[in-house]
């Protein structure tokens, strides 16, 4: 079954590809000038993986410094830069490009389109994002400016005013931070517009919105969502630059400006941003869990409703990051309630995934292992999220290592795990070769163990009063044992990621030939060749359900009968 060619009738141009060898320069030229959604998707992905390694290296430095008390591995200034760059990199240069990597590569294939709606805008968005990232890292060189102070940004990725104003952050580091994120932010807006226009205007015949694979649904909601999520950050960074360069007073507390206004603006962006980042994980999980449980997604309409519900509720919860700034008790209570409401659609998603697995025949290939770990870790992250939403308890937990543990459970335990899952799942489609299952299992188990060593224990050191952002801690606090374990776990994760990188590269050249449909899957991207031709489908496909290949493979029992 697996290797059988299963194209839509007439969907493939079977004329052999031109045999001509391309020179390196020609290849490079074709990638730099491309407007093809698949190449751009892969470039987004390569950008993410590159910055994941950079941000990961920063994390390793952080963990070495904190492994023992009173360490002098790096200076406090360097440490502050490391965690600021780590956070900024992981959110804006890894997480955000990943959204567009998946959306670019998979969505047009899944909805039977030949490309995104605006291919040139697509390329423009990618290059903005990439140059924004390079610009941010140029701060290591350009940051000192004329003042001879600082290099990379060192104000945390929240960049709370007034610490970011000229008076407290001279030099150019903070400007690099703000400008780089404005630039990547424009790239994000372009990408978001492209996704929604693609999904609304480019679907193949028969694919009504409620016949879109859930992956595409989630990316569609995500694309629309980033438009209102990233823009408040762009606006407030413009304000920050006005303060820094034009002598404005938005956040200048000496001239009547307000520090809390920055907090509100930042978190109006910052909290929904977490959902922007985690939506691709939901999207991938919805595909992987279906295919490896051999069952249709349980409660498709409820899943669509839940994802929209999460997006809506999450724009009204931002101040749960601000329970300690002295809001009124009624304000605190409101944000407790709105935050906990997010748990309801999130719960629906987890239960529906479980119900999808219920009664299936679960195959434990590497993508599914990551997906199962994702389910477990996402559950835990949701539960620690409930703890953090309890405002009085949040007064203790906020800004502690418990929070670090909680959001890394989302960012690593959910997102990174599902990104790995998705790469193992779609790598055969993008390259035509399978990734090594043996290395994949090593990668999974080492990463799983390292993850839990690091982030499980972090919760406890948070209970013990260890705040985040500290470059060192006194020996008499009793935090050293846990911190050592955390650091060891970090190293194990680092090793696992190196195994993954090796697997990625070696499989690219030596992996088993995959065929068009190695997982026996049900969505349209598996109906074309691996890798797909530039035009994706030679004739436009026509579908009657959200699992067109299931209908094709099971004409006796097609999905559309239950539509």
């Amino acid at each position, binding site marked *: 079954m697996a290797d059988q060619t299963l194209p839509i009738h007439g969907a493939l141009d079977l004329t052999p590809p031109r045999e001509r060898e391309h020179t390196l320069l020609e290849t490079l030229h074709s990638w730099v000038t491309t407007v093809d959604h698949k190449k751009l998707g892969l470039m987004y992905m390569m950008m993410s993986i590159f910055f994941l390694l950079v941000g990961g290296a920063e994390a390793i430095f952080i963990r070495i410094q904190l492994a023992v008390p009173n360490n002098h591995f790096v200076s406090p200034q360097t440490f502050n830069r490391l965690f600021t760059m780590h956070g900024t990199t992981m959110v804006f240069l890894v997480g955000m490009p990943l959204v567009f990597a998946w959306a670019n590569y998979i969505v047009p294939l899944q909805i039977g389109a030949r490309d995104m709606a605006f291919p040139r805008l697509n390329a423009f968005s990618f290059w903005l994002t990439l140059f924004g990232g390079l610009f941010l890292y140029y701060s290591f060189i350009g940051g000192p400016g004329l003042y001879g102070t600082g290099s990379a940004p060192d104000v945390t990725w929240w960049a709370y005013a007034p610490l970011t104003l000229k008076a407290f952050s001279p030099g150019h580091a903070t400007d690099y931070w703000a400008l780089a994120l404005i630039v990547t932010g424009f790239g994000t807006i372009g990408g978001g517009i492209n996704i929604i226009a693609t999904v609304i*205007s480019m679907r193949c015949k028969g694919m009504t919105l409620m016949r879109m694979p859930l992956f595409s649904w989630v990316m569609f909601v995500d694309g629309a969502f980033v438009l209102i999520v990233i823009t408040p950050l762009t606006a407030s960074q413009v304000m920050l630059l006005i303060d820094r360069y034009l002598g404005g007073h938005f956040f200048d507390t000496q001239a009547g400006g307000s520090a809390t206004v920055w907090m509100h603006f930042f978190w109006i962006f910052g909290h929904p941003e977490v959902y922007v980042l985690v939506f691709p994980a939901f999207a991938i999980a919805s595909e992987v869990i279906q295919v490896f449980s051999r069952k249709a997604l349980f409660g498709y309409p409820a899943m669509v409703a839940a994802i929209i519900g999460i997006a809506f509720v999450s724009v009204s919860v931002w101040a749960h990051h601000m329970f300690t700034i002295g809001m009124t008790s009624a304000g605190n209570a409101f944000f407790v309630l709105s935050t906990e409401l997010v748990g309801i659609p999130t719960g629906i998603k987890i239960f529906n995934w479980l119900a999808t697995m219920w009664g299936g025949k679960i195959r434990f290939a590497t993508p599914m292992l990551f997906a199962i770990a994702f389910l477990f870790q996402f559950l835990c992250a949701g539960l620690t999220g409930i703890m953090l939403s309890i405002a009085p308890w949040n007064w203790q937990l906020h800004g502690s290592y418990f929070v670090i543990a909680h959001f890394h459970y989302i960012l690593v335990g959910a997102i990174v795990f599902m990104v790995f899952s998705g790469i193992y799942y779609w790598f055969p489609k993008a390259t035509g070769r399978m990734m090594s299952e043996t290395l994949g299992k090593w990668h999974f188990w080492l990463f799983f163990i390292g993850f839990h060593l690091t982030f499980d224990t972090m919760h406890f050191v948070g209970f013990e009063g260890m705040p985040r952002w500290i470059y060192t801690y006194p020996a008499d606090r009793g935090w050293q044992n846990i911190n050592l374990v955390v650091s060891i776990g970090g190293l194990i994760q680092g090793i696992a990621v190196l195994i993954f990188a090796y697997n990625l590269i070696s499989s690219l050249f030596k992996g088993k030939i995959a065929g068009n449909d190695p997982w026996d899957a049900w969505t349209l991207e598996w109906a074309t060749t691996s890798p797909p031709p530039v035009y994706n489908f030679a004739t436009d496909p026509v579908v009657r359900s959200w699992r067109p290949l299931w209908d094709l493979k099971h004409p006796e029992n097609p999905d559309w009968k239950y539509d």
Partner: protein
Amino acid sequence: MNAIPLVATSPEQEWHLPYKGRIGMYGLIIAESAIFTIFVIAYIYYIGKSLYGPTPQQVLDVPIVNTICLLSSSITIFLSERAIERNNLKTFGLWWAATIALGAIFLIGTGIEWHKLIYHDGLTISTNLFGTTFYSLVGLHATHVVVGLIMLTIVLLFTLTGHVKHEHSERVQVLALYWHFVDAVWVVVFTVVYIVGR
């Protein structure tokens, strides 16, 4: 199995999806609205919080002429949209040029207002919170007017050289959508800055 096409019922069935340019513009408008919302919230929050003058009451005059010009440009661009849909290219060009003229008058009016504020009243972006929020919000809107005018002018040049045809009416309407948005934002900015904040 290979021969089974994914289409089972009549291949002739209707399949219409919205024009992608329009959807893209709606996306841009949503994003821009969020940016303006943040600036408007900042403006409203900081009303009356300046530690020193000048205050809006002392220096701001309500820009009636400006507002009339900009709002009527929405009508002229609507008339030109209708003209191109009816393949009346000459009328289209006239109304389009009128739109540009009205937009330019608005910009010049803003320039005169700012000149007075800076040189006569001594209000700059760094003077106080009012200056900071006023120039940011009004300036952000004016920037959008400038961008709009540039794009409108490009279309006008194409019209004059005879490159704009009836078949471009959908694209022209997408651009007009942006112009309507810029006008609508002015209603909000005008209300907040010159009525509520003054």
